[in-house]
Structures are given as C-alpha cells and as structure tokens.
C-alpha cells in the first residue's frame, strides 16, 4: 500500500530533476548537458514506477487510499482562514498518474533524440521536468487551492516550453498568448474558489476536496451553479475549448515533443481532469452539465472544421486535439464520466504518437507544411506504419482504441435520453466524419504520392514570393532517412498502445484477464465520487455496446476517409477546385473563423488598448496629475500675491496694522 511519502515522491522526483538541472547542471556543468536528459528520463521513470504502485494500491483499497488519516495538512493557517493541502489518491488520480508519467516518459526518451544538439538542451529538460511535476502535482492534489497552484504551474511550464525558442518572435508571442488566454479562464476558476470558500466554515472547509464531496448537497442550487460554471471556465481555458481555444494552434511554436506532451496528457488534459475532480459538484447542477455538453459538442465540430483545410501538419493535429477534447467534455456533460476519462486515456497515447510522427516527418523533410511533403512512406517505414495505426485510432476504426472510446461517448450521449443528448450525438457523429477526412488527408499528403521537395522547395517558394525566411525554417533541412532509435522506439510503443489500449474498456464480453467494463469498474469504484457502484452503473458508467450506433459511426468515419482518398490520393476530386467553389466557406475556415482577429485586433488592441487604456492613461496624466500640479501652482501664486504684503516697508506694515485694529474695534463694538 503506497504511503504519503511515496505519493509525494511521484511529484518530487521530476521536481528535483528540475531543480538540479536548473541550479546545478545548467549554470555549472552545461558541458555535460546530456546528463540533464538522462536525469529527466530517470526521474520520470521513477514517477511511473511509483504510479504503478499507487495504481495497485488503489485497486486493492477499493478506489481510494486514505492518506494521513483522511485529515488534510495546513499550508496556510490564520484564524478563520485555513488552506488545506495533501494527497488525494483515488481511482481518477491513478488513471491520470499512469497516463501522465507514461506519456511523459516516452516523450522524454523521444526528446533525447529530437533535441540533440540544441543549445538549450539542458533548459529543455529542466522545463520538461517541471511540466511533468506540475501535472502530477495537479492530479494528486487534495486541497482546492493546491489544485490551483499546480494548475497555474502547468500553465507556466507550457509558457516556458512554447516560448522555448525565445529568439523567435512568433514563439515568444505564442507563449504569451497561451498564458494570457488560459489566465482568463483561471480568473473565473479563482472566483469560484473564493465563492466556494465562503460557503464553508472552519469545521467543514470546502477547500478540501473530500470534505467538498461530502457536502455537495448542502451548497444549494444557485451557488453550485456559479461555482461549477467558474471551474468549467477554467477548464475551457486550459483545454482550449470554444471560445478560449485560439491559443492552442499557435502553441505549435514550441519544440515538437512539447506539443506531443501539451496535447495529450498534460496541459489540455488538465481541464478535463478538473471537471472530473469536481464531478459531484457538476452533477448537482443540470444547467452547467448542459453547458458542458453543448460547449464540448460544438467545439468537437468547430475545431474539426478548421482541421479540414489547415496545411501545417501540427496545426491539423492541434485542431484535432481541440476537437477530441470537445468529445471529452461532451461526455462529461452527458454524465458519461467513464467514457470521458477513457477517451482521455487512449487519446493521450495516440495523439502523442501522431505528434511524434509529425516530428519524425520534420526530421526527414525539414518542414511541417503538408504541401511540401509526400511520398515519405518509403523513407520512414516505421513512422508510416505507426501513423496509420494512430490515424485509424483517431478516426475511430475497429479495432483501434479510438473506436472503443468514441463509441462509449456516443452511446453515453444516446443513453442520456434527452434533447441535449440528441443534439450532441449529432454533433459527435458529424465530427466523426470530419475526423476521418482530415486525418487521412494528412496521411495521404505526407506519405503518399511523390516527394514535393521539403524545406528546400518551401524556402525557394518563399524567396520567389519575396518573403523573408524566418529562423524556424532556416534551421530545417532535407534529410531523407528514418529518425534515430530514441524517436522510433517511443513511436512504436505508442502504436502498440493505440492498438490494444481500447480493449481495457471491453464493453462486449469478459475476455481472459480483462473483465467486462474493467476500466469503468475501476474508475467508478471510488465511493467519494460515486456513492455506490450500482448507482454509477445506473448513471451510465457501463453502457451496453450499441451495434447500430457503432456501425453508423464507423460508416461515417470510412466515408470521410474515402473522401480524403478521392481528393488527395485518387485525385478524382480536385481540392483546389473545391476551394474555389466553396470560397466563402474555405476562407472562413482557413482564417479560423476570424477569431484571432476578433480577439487580438478588435477587442484587445482597438477597443481595450487603444481606447480604454489610452483614455485611462491620459486621464491619469491630464486630470489626476494635472489637478495636483494645478494645486501646486495655485499655492505658488497665492504665495506670490500674499508676498506683496511682506514688502519690508514699515509704512505698509503700519497701515495694515492700523486698518486691522480699526476693523477689530468695529467688530467688537457693533457685534458684541
């Protein structure tokens, strides 16, 4: 049974790696930067080992290992204001722990090869360690403020990693954008925390998650709604849901392994985890559940539509991530808690795989632009095979893992038996077809056909168009060969995961050691979140496999794939002619619905910065400061006027004194 110290060590190991690299290796032994990579890999491997131990312990303990006698520790303590912290080790935590440490470990191994020779090698691994530690800290947190602390540290790590190549203005801007947009959501989350705190008392401190679980019923309708909404707003920011999604596509500016981690198990998964962590609170307020489902369903289609036309391979995957996260929220909103986390779990593996493959493709062709790739399956056989497996999984084709998880989500929406359920089911199915299309569009454009010249051709075209070549492109070069083993090994492992992970949900029949609904059973064992297992099943934790629905979604995915085949492989339909024919739609999609312009140019720059802030600043200068200066100059003038009285002439003083005396006498005589 894992104890509290061991649980802290899960977070502590990568954190120690961050500190050691940052304080010792980077400043003093940067010649041995290799050690930074090994240290990171070793520490995260240690976290993974401890996470497995934690998993086994939780399975033994029936869903929740009680730490420290179920009493939280105190981080800050004032009379009437106690901020608790501690370890919450339940089934949700351990699922997240395994996902995070597992994916992160593979990403770090991949990074050993991918980042080789980068001058910021040790800095990269320091930040990666911090990133992993923050995410692990988030999922083991027991206090609500503690969750917020790690939540923000996850945001910080993303900021540092997205802006890793800080000399590139685009990277620096993308990093800032990611931090600021997520902070908008965090602001709402913070207000929710404040509100939550004031509803509690010293005895029932609602900032302690288990205490909150016990007292959810006491919160009352409106309060629960506002709090859940605030928390959800935080999740929307971190998980890049509409309308706070615009930072994620730009986040591609970071190194590719960073994208692999940001898009799978860390940053964006944090939002889904957050809603899961406060799930009892969400369940108590149906209006917020509806909001969650609709936002998720809408985002699933909305983001997928932008992926249809993007030409940057990483951007396609970024929109895909946003879309897939939409599925998770859709599931949470319809009450399909298990399906949401199962999708998070399997999506983490195959999305990491896809990003790694994009990195591998970049390694060979020097570019991320699909228009300059093609025919790479011959030079990248391993990567190609793995991408196919990841792609089929993403598209939701039997028997790959995405098929099972997506199916559970759709069944959940159907079983919700409500108008909202139907709406999001339709949205979900629409996105299925789009997913099949954009994924195989990428595969055909990258790996099939003839090689279209890679970075060399791209630079040539840029020069011909009279554009400057930014440093990002200058770094790349065509190098048509399979990537080093540090990169291929993780990709292969992930491909295996994409193939088999789906069976863990096993909705059809018990098979061998895998029980029917084994994942669902494990996750809903937790009595803190689900009063009893029967109730959880009642709430849709173990949906029956729905053959017609599975058939329909597969058919839709296949039709999307077929369309991609027709357009990009068989060339029966010309993409460019389609673009001309549906020009307004095409332009809208390519320009991402103009939301960047709306936010950055119109709202932030024009309305806020150039109107409001400018007005306030000039008010400060001319009025507030102006009045002060005026008072100063009036006193000066008053002084110089009164100064005439002090002219040093005895006659004047005498005259004034006599006049004063006369007045005083007059007052004395006539009034008193």
């Amino acid at each position, binding site marked *: 049974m894992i104890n509290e110290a061991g649980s802290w060590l899960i977070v502590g190991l990568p954190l120690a790696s961050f500190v050691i690299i940052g304080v010792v290796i980077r400043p003093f032994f940067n010649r041995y930067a290799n050690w930074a990579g090994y240290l990171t890999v070793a520490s995260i491997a240690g976290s993974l080992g401890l996470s497995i131990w934690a998993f086994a312990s939780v399975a033994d303990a029936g869903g929740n290992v009680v730490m420290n006698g179920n009493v939280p520790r105190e*981080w800050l303590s004032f009379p009437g*204001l106690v901020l608790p912290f501690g370890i919450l080790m339940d089934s949700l935590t351990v699922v997240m722990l395994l996902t995070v440490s597992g994916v992160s470990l593979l990403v770090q191994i991949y990074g050993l090869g991918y980042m080789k020779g980068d001058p910021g090698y040790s800095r990269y691994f320091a930040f990666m360690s911090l990133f992993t530690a923050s995410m692990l800290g988030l999922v083991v947190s027991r206090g609500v403020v503690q969750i*917020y602390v790690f939540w923000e540290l996850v945001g910080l790590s993303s900021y540092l990693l997205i802006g890793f190549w800080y000399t*590139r203005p685009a990277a620096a801007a993308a990093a800032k954008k990611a931090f600021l947009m997520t902070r908008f959501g965090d602001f709402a989350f913070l207000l929710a925390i*404040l509100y939550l705190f004031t509803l509690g008392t010293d005895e029932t401190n609602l900032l302690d998650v288990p205490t909150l679980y016990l007292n959810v019923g006491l919160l009352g309708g409106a309060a629960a709604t506002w709090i859940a909404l605030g928390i959800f707003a935080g999740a929307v920011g971190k998980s890049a849901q509409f309308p706070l999604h615009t930072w994620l596509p730009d986040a591609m500016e970071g190194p590719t392994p960073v994208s692999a981690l940001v898009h799978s198990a860390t940053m964006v998964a944090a939002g889904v985890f957050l809603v899961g962590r406060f799930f009892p609170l969400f369940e108590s307020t149906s209006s917020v559940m509806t909001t969650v489902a609709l936002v998720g369903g809408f985002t699933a289609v909305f983001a997928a539509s932008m992926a249809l036309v993007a030409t940057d391979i990483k951007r396609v995957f970024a929109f895909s991530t946003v879309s897939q996260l939409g599925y998770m929220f859709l599931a949470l909103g319809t009450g399909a808690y298990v399906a949401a986390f199962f999708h998070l779990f399997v999506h983490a593996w195959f999305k990491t795989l896809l990003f790694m493959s994009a990195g591998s493709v970049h390694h060979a062709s020097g570019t991320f632009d699909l228009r300059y790739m093609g025919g790479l399956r011959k030079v990248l056989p391993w990567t190609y095979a793995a991408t196919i497996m990841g792609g089929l999984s993403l598209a939701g084709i039997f028997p790959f893992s995405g098929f099972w998880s997506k199916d559970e989500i759709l069944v959940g929406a159907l079983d919700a038996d409500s108008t909202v359920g139907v709406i999001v089911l339709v949205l979900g199915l629409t996105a299925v077809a789009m997913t099949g299309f954009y994924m195989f569009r990428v595969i055909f454009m990258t790996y099939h056909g003839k090689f279209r010249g890679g970075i060399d051709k791209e630079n040539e075209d840029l020069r011909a168009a009279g554009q400057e070549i930014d440093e990002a492109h200058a770094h790349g070069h065509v190098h048509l060969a399979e990537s080093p083993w540090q990169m291929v090994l993780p990709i292969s492992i992930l491909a295996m995961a994409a193939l088999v992970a789906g069976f863990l949900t096993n909705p059809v029949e018990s098979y061998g050691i895998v029980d029917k609904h084994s994942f669902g059973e494990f996750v809903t064992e937790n009595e803190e979140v689900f009063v009893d297992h029967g109730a959880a099943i009642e709430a849709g934790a173990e949906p029956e496999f729905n053959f017609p629905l599975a058939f329909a979604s597969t058919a839709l995915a296949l039709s999307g794939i077929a369309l991609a085949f027709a357009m990009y492989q068989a060339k029966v339909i010309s993409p460019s002619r389609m673009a001309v024919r549906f020009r307004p739609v095409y332009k809208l999609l390519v320009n991402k619905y103009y939301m960047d312009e709306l936010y950055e140019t119109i709202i932030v720059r024009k309305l806020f910065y150039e109107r409001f802030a*400018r007005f306030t*600043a000039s008010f400060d200068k001319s009025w*507030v400061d102006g009045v*002060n200066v005026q008072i100063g100059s009036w006193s000066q003038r008053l002084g110089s006027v009164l100064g005439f009285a002090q002219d040093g002439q005895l006659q004047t003083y005498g005259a004034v004194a006599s006049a004063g005396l006369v007045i005083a006498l007059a007052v004395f005589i006539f009034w008193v």
Partner: protein
Amino acid sequence: MFSGWLTAAVFLPAATALVLVFMPRRDSWIRWTAIGATVVELGLTIGIFVAYEVDRGGVQLVDFLDWIPIDGFEANYFLGVDGLSAPMILLTGILGAAAAFASWRVTHRVREYFIWLLILQTAVTGVFASLDLLLFFVFWEIELIPMFMLISGWGTGQPRYSAMKFVLFTLTGSAFMLVGILALFVSQDIGTFAMISLPEEGIVGIPEKMALASGLIAPAGLIFALFFVAFAVKLPIWPLHNWLPDAHTDAPTAVSVMLAGVLLKMGGYGMIRISTGFFLDSPGFQIKDIAWLLAAGAAISVAYGAVVTLRQTDLKRLIAYSSISHMGFVMLGIAAISATGDRGPSGGLNGAALQMFTHGTITGLLFLLVGMTYERAHTRHIPDLGGLATRMPLIATAFLVAGLASLGLPGLSGFPAEITVFLGTWDTWPWATGIAAFGIVLAAAYILWMVQRSFFGPMLPRFADVKDASAVDLIPVVGLIVPIVAIGIWPSLITDSFRVGIAAMLG
C-alpha cells in the same frame, strides 16, 4: 527595559554614516564599509526576526527610556517589535543590503551617496521599530531628507522636479498626521504616545485608551482622516498616487529599490497599526464604518493602476504603476475589517501584511534588475529593447522570476499574499474583490508583454557587446530570490509572525 537589539539595528546605519564622514577619500573603502554595514545590519534584522518568540507573542526586545519626561506629556524612547513589525524590520534589512549592493557601481560623490543611503535606512528601520507615536513621527519625517537628496542628486530625467514632488506630497500627508497626533493627544483620557501597551512599564497604549475614550475634543472621525491621508499618500492610493511614478522613474536604482520595497510599506504599516489598531472599537468612530470606502478605493487603485500600467513604455514607470496596483491589494485586505461572519477580518489583514512583505522583495528585485538592464542597454524605452536574453541570460532569468512572482504565480511569494487577501475579503466585499482579482489577468498582460519585448526576440546588433550580471551584481539578486521562492513555497515562514501580531491587535 533595554535589550539593545533594536537600538543597534536602528542606529547602526547612521553610525556608519558618521564614520564615513571621517573616512579618507578612497571610494572603494567608503563603498565597501557602507555595504559591509548593511550586511551586518541584515544579520541584526534576521537576528531580531528569529529572536522574536512567536509562541510568546506580545511586544518583545523592548528598548525603553524616558525621552521627554514632562508630566502629562510623556514621550518615551520606546522601541519594540511585535508580530507585525518583526517581518517589516527584516524586510528593511534585506532591501537595505540589496540597495547597497546595487550601488556598488556608483562613482559620483560616493561618500555623500552612501551617507544618505544609510541615513535612509536608519529612518525606515526607526519607523517600524518605534512604538511611541512621537518617535514614529520623527523617523517618518527624517526619511524625507535623504530621499530628497538622493533623488535630486543622483537621479536621472527630471530629478529635481520628481524629488520636490515626492517631498511635497509626503510632507502634506505628514502635516495632517502631525495635527492628528496632537489632536489625539490633547483629547481627554488619552495622554500617552505609546502605540501599544507595555504592562512591564505600567503603560497603557493608545488602542486600549481609545476603546475607553469618552470625551474626545476633536471628533474621532476627523482624527482618523488626518492619519489616514498621510498613509494613503504613502501607500499610495488613487488619486493620491501621482508622486510615485515620477519619483521611481527618476530615482537612482538603489533608491527605487528602497522606495518601492520599504517606503510604500510605511503607509500600509501605518494603516494597520494606527488606522486599524487605534480605531478598532473607539466609541466615536470605528474604521469598519468606512470599510466600504477602503474597498472601493482599493478596487479602483488595483484596476486603474493596472490599466495605466499597460500603457507604459518605460520599464521603470511600468513597474512603478504596477506598484500602485499591487498596493491596492494591501488596502483591500484591510477593508475586510468590517467582516461580520465567524471568519472575521483576520484573513484579510494577514493577507495585507503578507502582501506588503512580498511586494517589497518582488518589486525591489524588479527595480534592481531594471537598473542593471539600463546600465547595460542605456535605455529603458521598451520598444527600443529586445532580444536581451541571448546576451544576458542570468538577468533575463531573474527578471522572469521576479515578473512571474509579481503576476501572482503560485510557487512564488506573490501568490499566497494575493490569495489570502482575496479569500479574506470576498465574503465582505465580493465586488471589490472580483474587480481586484481581475488585476491578476492584467498583471499577466503587462508583465509578459514587458518581458517579451525586452528580453525575447532576435538579438539586436546594437546590444552585441552587452555583458551579463557579474558575481557582485548577483549577490542582491539571489538574496531577493531566496525569500521570494521560500515564502512562495512555505508562507508560514513569515505568516506565523504576522498572525500573532494581528491576532493581538484584533484582540
């Protein structure tokens, strides 16, 4: 009673200044003597902070002598620390040493410079150590003279204008305070200057007497206002803040560090110790009656300060305006004084006190680093900067740490202070707290914009020869990062002390 610790801490810098007067004209001797003295002083203040026994509470390390022993007008030389002032004295020690180190490159009239800097430190330490109102006022006023000299003599831009503006604003404030002190004193039944009770000397402090005061000659509300204006100018609060951007921008680096780091905190300290402590439950007027005004003023200061900060293009001016915004949190915490629930005002006040300490270290560090950047790049105009991280990674890293702390990133010390203020105040003033909490979004915007424009991006050819921080430069930087990180991770290091002091005050 005379333990001597505080007397030593208050007068060590001034005594060193006196030594400097007679030292031979060798700049390096003068410089290192002064820096050495501030290091010893730092040791003393750490000693005081550690020696203060939190479990015992109350006033400790008292130095008590008769000063003006006239019957009915007994002003005493009364120094002592309680839980509230012990961390503030420590803060002064830390920033005093940082400011001295930050001045090691000063070459213009070195002797005079360090003399004034040391006198400044004596004055500020005196303010926090004094528990006699008249003595407090004397130190409060002394601080103006070195500030005026340092800004006008070693400043940049329009130093004379800024120095004069600073002095006029503060002096106006303290004129009100002097009237307040006299009005308080002549009120019947008060008849003491002791700011706190000292049973060992048979002294009953003003707070206790105020609670029983029956026949105040001047209305208590007026006396409160007289004090409050002085503190509001110093903190500063909108719309009394306009001296601050000018003074900060034109002051030499070390003076900006002291000004932002500890001088502003004199205002917050006065608000807690005097405005809150004296008028807690005096029958004529209670601070909670105007808590709504404090909350509103705080919300305006935070939001207005942050919005104006966004428009600044000078590094120093930007940080100066951000200080206005951040000091609003201090007043917001104090506004929790009218809390009625079972939680009480303790959270807000503790948060305010913690915010003073953390803002001191964070903004002190920011000004220090801006000074270093200016020294190297020869400009503070943000659009002219860029790509500096490539040439000076150490300064850039430290700047990022300080900036992140300033925008309230968890793990660094700004966060526990802000969250405590927000949690402590939300119940009582939800709207003001909500507006102020939005300040963290705006803070992220201006800090990250500043960092991005100054340090990130391609290296500019005109900064090709810029050198990173030297070992000596790094001493104060590391010295300030240590408390920022330590308190960020484990705030109880400092809050245990504040908790005791504020609990004693709230009774």
